């Protein structure tokens, strides 16, 4: 009997490595130990202590483990040794890298956030809030590895072992460096401490007089050191190396990149003043900030609405870096002419198609990388017009992935044609085709005599209802709507025109109307991997009432809108609409209770755009892969996200 069970155990050794799983962790720590033993070199003046926090040594690990808070003096020698070689680095770079690390004088600043901040600075700025932005800098690092192998004394040498994975060519160098290390004299722990303290003091001083060090400083320092090392190098390569060097200079560069690869990129937090100021400087769209910002939502952009449009329209002919198609789409987002997840996504992709069509590679530039940068800048413009939806984020990730994967051998025209057809295919397969499949699945769930409830104006649900009507199913539709957008009226109009029997009500009546409903069909802006449905505000309310009445809730969502992120509430990521929309009722002059109060400091208007519906309230998610329970979303994300990036 036991013998029967044993083979079973052998049959399914499917070990799914989930989460922060790192097999190589003990290894790397042991090598660190070794290194500490072999090169017990003290810190030199230029190395910021915080850098040692990230154990970037484990080059094999697929996922970065959030670095433990080590006593900096313990691991210091590792980093210090590396920095020792490039002790010539000027104090300015030193102050730059530390400025962020010691905003309040604490020694162990949390590495993730601050170092990310520094990353944002060095790369294309705003777009870094998108997933996949890591790619251009990654590419830079990769391509730099080849030329760098020839160098011997570049400041790249400061690279911690982790980066060696990407810039394998540089390993030679760090090896050399390792060899040279033991030559240096040993110091005791106390001495190292003292040096550290001195550094900190110097840093504070530098911070005080330096004020704001431009972000490029460290990179420029690095590049000068490159120049010193090898003046004969071609300029493009030099730039690349300097980028890589710059990244390494800021402590934890490589670990950061690894993390970036795996973790979704954080969104811009609008309550972080320093970064908001910076973002504003770059911005094309000049938005005036709302005066009374809602307390809990300070991290979201809150602007006065309706002020930017005329300004932008006048700028139409001055903005040479922006492609007109992108500009047009951006303005349409801003004015609200295009709304709805699919429509916005398709408009953006078509604009990108135009971009690709009109694109020509500038001299001495690489198509893949230049185009990615271009797209990133367009995306940041679009974000300024209106925050991206998750589906758009996925689509952008797809486009960038396609650009990065373009074979070098293709000629420019071929590459452009390939890209255009890829985008076309994405639109056709993942959006339009997916909707067809969803409709096909969903109509099987509509029976004669059903009363279907829908909220807002989801396109997929509209298609389902129309198709079911074409199939001569006998059903009734309840359209539930809400202020201020009243999108349901549009849906209502189209359904009535086709002769479908409808009832229209506002969400206030939902608990009354629900008892006669047999099924609830909802749309979604996105489905997150814990099954949470992120959708138009009010959806959660409808779903909860429905589940309280034991009415099945069916969510229709294309698989390209699935995201691996997990979200538990509607606060941390959301979008705020125009506060005026809820403070006034159009066409009702008699309701003017709020007149003159809009700028009152004690009054805040919260016009949320989205909310998150927990998976408990959802019976089924209908996607292009069939009808699945909300618990299976991560399976689809895991199995098909890759494929959908590759399409």
């Amino acid at each position, binding site marked *: 009997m036991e013998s*029967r069970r044993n083979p*079973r155990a052998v049959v*399914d050794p499917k070990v799914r490595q989930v989460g922060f799983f790192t097999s190589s962790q003990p290894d790397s720590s042991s090598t660190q130990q070794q290194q500490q033993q072999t090169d017990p070199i003290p810190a030199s003046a230029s190395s910021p202590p915080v850098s040692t926090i990230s154990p970037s040594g484990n080059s094999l690990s697929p996922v970065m483990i959030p670095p433990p808070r080590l006593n900096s003096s313990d691991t210091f020698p590792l980093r210090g040794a590396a920095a020792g070689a490039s002790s010539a680095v000027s104090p300015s770079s030193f102050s730059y890298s530390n400025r962020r690390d010691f905003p309040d004088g604490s020694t162990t600043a949390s590495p993730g956030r601050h170092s990310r901040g520094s990353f944002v600075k060095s790369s294309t700025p705003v777009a870094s809030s998108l997933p996949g932005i890591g790619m251009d800098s990654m590419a830079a690092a990769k391509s730099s590895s080849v030329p760098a192998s020839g160098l011997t004394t570049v400041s790249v040498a400061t690279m911690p072992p982790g980066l060696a994975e990407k810039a394998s060519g540089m390993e030679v160098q760090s090896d050399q460096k390792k060899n040279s290390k033991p030559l240096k004299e040993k110091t005791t722990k106390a001495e190292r401490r003292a040096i550290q303290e001195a550094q900190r003091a110097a840093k504070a001083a530098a911070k005080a007089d330096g004020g704001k060090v431009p972000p490029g400083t460290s990179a420029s320092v690095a590049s000068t050191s490159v120049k010193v090392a090898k003046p004969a190098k071609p300029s493009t390569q030099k730039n690349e190396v300097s980028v890589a060097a710059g990244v390494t200079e800021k402590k934890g560069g490589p670990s950061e990149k690894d993390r970036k690869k795996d973790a979704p990129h954080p969104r811009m937090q609008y309550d972080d003043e320093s970064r908001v100021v910076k973002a504003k400087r770059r911005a094309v769209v000049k938005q005036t900030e709302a005066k009374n910002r809602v307390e809990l939502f300070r991290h979201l952009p809150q602007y006065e609405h309706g002020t930017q449009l005329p300004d932008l329209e006048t700028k139409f002919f001055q903005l040479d870096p922006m492609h007109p198609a992108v500009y047009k789409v951006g303005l349409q987002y801003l004015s609200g002419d295009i709304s709805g997840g699919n429509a916005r996504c398709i408009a953006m992709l078509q604009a990108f198609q135009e971009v690709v069509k009109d694109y020509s590679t500038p001299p001495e530039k690489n198509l893949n990388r230049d185009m990615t940068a271009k797209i990133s800048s367009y995306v940041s413009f679009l974000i300024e017009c209106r925050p991206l939806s998750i589906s758009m984020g996925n689509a952008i990730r797809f486009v960038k992935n396609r650009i990065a994967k373009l074979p070098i051998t293709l000629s420019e025209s071929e590459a452009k044609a390939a890209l255009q057809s890829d985008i076309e295919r994405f639109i056709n397969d993942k959006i339009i085709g997916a909707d067809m499949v969803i409709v096909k699945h969903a109509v099987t769930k509509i029976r004669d005599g059903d009363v279907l409830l829908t909220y807002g104006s989801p396109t997929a649900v509209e298609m389902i209802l129309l198709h079911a009507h074409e199939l001569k199913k006998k059903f009734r539709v309840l359209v539930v709507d809400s202020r201020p957008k009243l999108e349901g009226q549009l849906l209502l109009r189209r359904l009535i025109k086709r002769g479908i029997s409808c009832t229209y009500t506002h969400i206030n009546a939902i608990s009354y109307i629900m008892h006669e409903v047999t099924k609830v069909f909802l749309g979604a802006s996105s489905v997150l991997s814990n099954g949470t449905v992120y959708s138009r505000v009010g959806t959660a309310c409808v779903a909860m009432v429905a589940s309280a009445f034991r009415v*099945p809730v069916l969510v229709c969502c294309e698989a390209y809108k699935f995201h691996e992120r997990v979200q538990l509430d509607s606060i941390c990521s959301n979008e705020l609409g125009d506060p005026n929309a809820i403070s006034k009722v159009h066409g009702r002059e008699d309701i003017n209770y709020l007149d003159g109060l809009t700028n009152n400091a004690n009054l805040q208007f919260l016009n949320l755009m989205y909310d998150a519906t927990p998976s408990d309230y959802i*019976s089924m998610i209908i996607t292009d892969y069939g009808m699945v329970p909300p618990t299976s979303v991560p399976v689809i994300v895991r*199995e098909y996200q890759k494929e959908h990036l590759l399409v």
Partner: protein
Amino acid sequence: MWRRTPSFILDRTSTSPPMAADTTRAPIQNPDSISAYYQTRAAHHGVITSEWLSQAQAAVGGVSDSGDEHPVSSLTELGNEKSFNVIEEFNSWRKQPDLAEAVAAIRALAAVIRASEATTMMELEIELTKASDTLKSWDTTSISLTAGCDLFIRYVTRTSALEYEDFNSAKSRLLERAEKFGEISCKARRIIAMLSQDFIFDGCTILVHGLSRVVLEILKTAAQNNKLFRVLCTEGRPDGTGVLLSSELSKLDIPVKLLLDSAVAYSMDEVDMVFVGADGVVESGGIINMMGTYQIALVAHSMNKPVYVAAESYKFARLYPLDQKDMAPALRPIEFGLKIPTKVEVERSARDYTPPQYLTLLFTDLGVLSPSVVSDELIQLYL
């Protein structure tokens, strides 16, 4: 539509079976206008005693092992009309009492491959799908038959063998896979019995509903392992499945008590776990099973007792019922003993749907799964 569904045993005259749109194939449809699903069950329930079982197995003997000769000969006898063969084949396999419907279907489809005169892979595939379609339309109410056919087609055709240059080697490869699949399905019950042993502890009381061969196997294995446990059997009106099961268990010297179906809540406090089989496991992770399972699961859930489901993986179906009425009903005759006025309506559905939140674990040949994993497995199987 609702009333015209098949699966009457007694009321043969009522209506013609509303089979799938496949009208060209009328002759091969179930000739008796009785739901084959129900027929099989009734047949098995009538005779499934251990003596008879062992007899039957002895009689069938080598056939199930060296089943190859049997289908080939029958096929060659029957000659050209292939679509006819499948059903015949299926029925001949179905006669073995210990063979589940789905496995019989798998065996029959394997025979189709064997007998096929196709010369290209495409032809063979088309033939195979046709055969499985006829099988499925022959009895639309059986979930495991449909699921078994679908799975088999997936399993057989989704293989690199299809890219083989040589057709004959590809075909033999397909056959190999078919045999293997049939074997796996046959062994499933043993595997499930093994897996479930960890959950049965000494001194526990198990409530069983319905006559499931897998559950019987589990209890048998537990008894052979010298576990001490008590079984409560529900009566299982109107088929008396519980009576049959309890007589089976008493032969194994397992202490068993028979309950009225309506006494489940009354005796739930002394129950440690509930074991049920399944007609089909659906995508949500819920199960479709004999009428009464849902209410037992509800009672067990409200009293915090675990509900375990034993089901082979070929019962996993790509269905997603939203509520009880959201599936093809399998109707059955019900004897009330008294004369019922014609005005009184009778609920005759033979099975109900138990949503996943009321199930604790599923014992399958893929392992012990929580309900939400079912969908993961289905996605991996079908997509």
